[in-house]
């Protein structure tokens, strides 16, 4: 009988197409991230060669402007990454079917990237900083003694654009994953009910899914920002240990960033708890 034949095929995992579905796609990060790690060896080995880092010369503007500069970079980069991540999560979760290979490809990468401890991203960021900070100085020319003001690519802050890219790599997967979880937490019956009353996809999203998922999406943003701040604190900390002459305002910045990371992660967990207490209590 037709029915039984199909059940058999579905469970047997015998066809080529199904092997591709079940094994090949989820294991792609193994290869792509392997290649990425191979490329990352270059800055890391560069950094190891320059442990004295004598070619990095730091202009020392006042502590407040440095702090603002760091904050500006962390905030703008992580907000950008969070925004992109949320859009991406909506697209994956609400528009692409579960079996779509693009969705599976991205989801498997996101899963791996969120699993990597943020210290590893920090090490990559530090390596980039140590390898190229000096180079950028050389590109800009002028000797450090006469550097007083800001120029493009001037190294007068602990964080710069290369590290910004690492932040995006670090923040986006967390945002995508947690936002997807938030969207998935809106139960199917709610969506079904709204669709069956004739609501369009847009109406279902704006009137039900987003209001319900909003707290958890906010939590997702907080969690991602916490990760960015923690890594920034790590960078600043390393900076302190390397360049003891430049400690003006450094330790306070280190503490401030650590504090921000802690605060944001507490916010995130609290928001998840609030969401749970609103929507799970009355299902009994």
């Amino acid at each position, binding site marked *: 009988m037709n*029915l039984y034949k*199909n059940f058999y095929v579905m469970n047997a995992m015998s066809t080529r197409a199904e092997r591709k579905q079940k094994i090949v796609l989820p294991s792609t990060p193994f290869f792509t991230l392997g290649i990425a790690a191979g490329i990352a060896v270059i800055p890391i080995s560069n950094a190891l060669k320059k442990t004295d880092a004598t070619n990095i010369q730091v202009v020392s503007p006042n502590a407040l402007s440095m702090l603002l500069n760091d904050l500006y970079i962390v905030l703008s980069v992580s907000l950008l990454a969070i925004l992109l991540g949320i859009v991406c999560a909506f697209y994956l979760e609400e528009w692409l079917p579960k079996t779509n290979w693009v969705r599976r490809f991205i989801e498997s990468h996101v899963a791996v990237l969120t699993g990597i401890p943020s210290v590893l991203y920090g090490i990559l960021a530090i390596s980039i900083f140590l390898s190229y900070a000096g180079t950028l100085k050389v590109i800009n020319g002028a000797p450090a003694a006469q550097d007083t003001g800001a120029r493009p690519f001037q190294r007068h802050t602990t964080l710069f654009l290369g590290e910004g890219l690492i932040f995006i790599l670090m923040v986006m997967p967390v945002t995508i994953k947690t936002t997807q979880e938030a969207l998935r937490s809106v139960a199917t*019956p709610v969506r079904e*009910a709204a*669709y069956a009353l*004739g609501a369009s996809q847009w109406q279902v999203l704006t009137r039900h899914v987003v209001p319900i998922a909003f707290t958890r999406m906010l939590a997702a943003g907080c969690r991602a920002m916490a990760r960015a701040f923690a890594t920034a604190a790590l960078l600043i900390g390393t900076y302190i240990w390397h360049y003891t002459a430049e400690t003006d305002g450094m330790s306070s910045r280190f503490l401030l960033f650590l504090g921000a990371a802690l605060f944001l992660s507490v916010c995130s967990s609290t928001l998840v708890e609030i969401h749970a207490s609103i929507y799970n209590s009355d299902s009994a």
Partner: protein
Amino acid sequence: MNHSIETENLSLWYGDFQALIDVSVKIPDGQITSLIGPSGCGKTTLLRCFNRVNERYGNVTTEGKIEILGKNIYDPDVSLPELRKAVGMVFQRPNPLPISVYENILFGLRIHSPMRSITRTESDQIVEEALTSVFLWEDLKDKLKVRATSLQLEQQQKLCIARLLPLKPKIILMDEPCSALDAKGTLAVEELMEILAGTYTFLIVTHNMAQARRVSEECIFMFLGELIEHRETQALFEDPKHEKTADYVQMRYG
């Protein structure tokens, strides 16, 4: 006799699994018709075809014709919101939206009318009418601002019926509406259906044969995607023409 739903050679596939095989059925206007059959026989699938909620799962292929109120619902000019407005659906598990009772009832109307076109007095009246017709007004008139998911299951299911009414549907599809309710709740919902039956056409999927016998005027028996028998309930239960129907209604299996 008028028919509000007519299908002709309706076949449906999930991927390459055929869930409905050449189903041709005519469902009379203004009556309760029940769909019975063992699990996995396509009852719910057939029901879900009638307001096209099936399509959301993707990977669904449909062939054949479904005419609802004289219009083929697979024509390209059919508007899904309008179709679902005319064909309401009640689900197996009560699924009120996680907003207030008041807003639950108005939700359907709000999405089908321009923004802010419903005045406060109108909406109050609509909510009262809808709740009165499902006999919830007395219980809930002081709880209109309460989140609907915190009500008792029986009240939730009645609310799910009530929120269809402001849209003035012609047909109400019910997918095992009483399976999550106790005996008292089941009785209440059945009574409600009987009272509303003249105004609306009901199509109800049920596993409970006693219920099919109690409430429905006509009964359809399905088996492995095929429609086996469609007759008046009394006749189908007492004198089944088909061997499989006889086995099922006399509870030899299922």
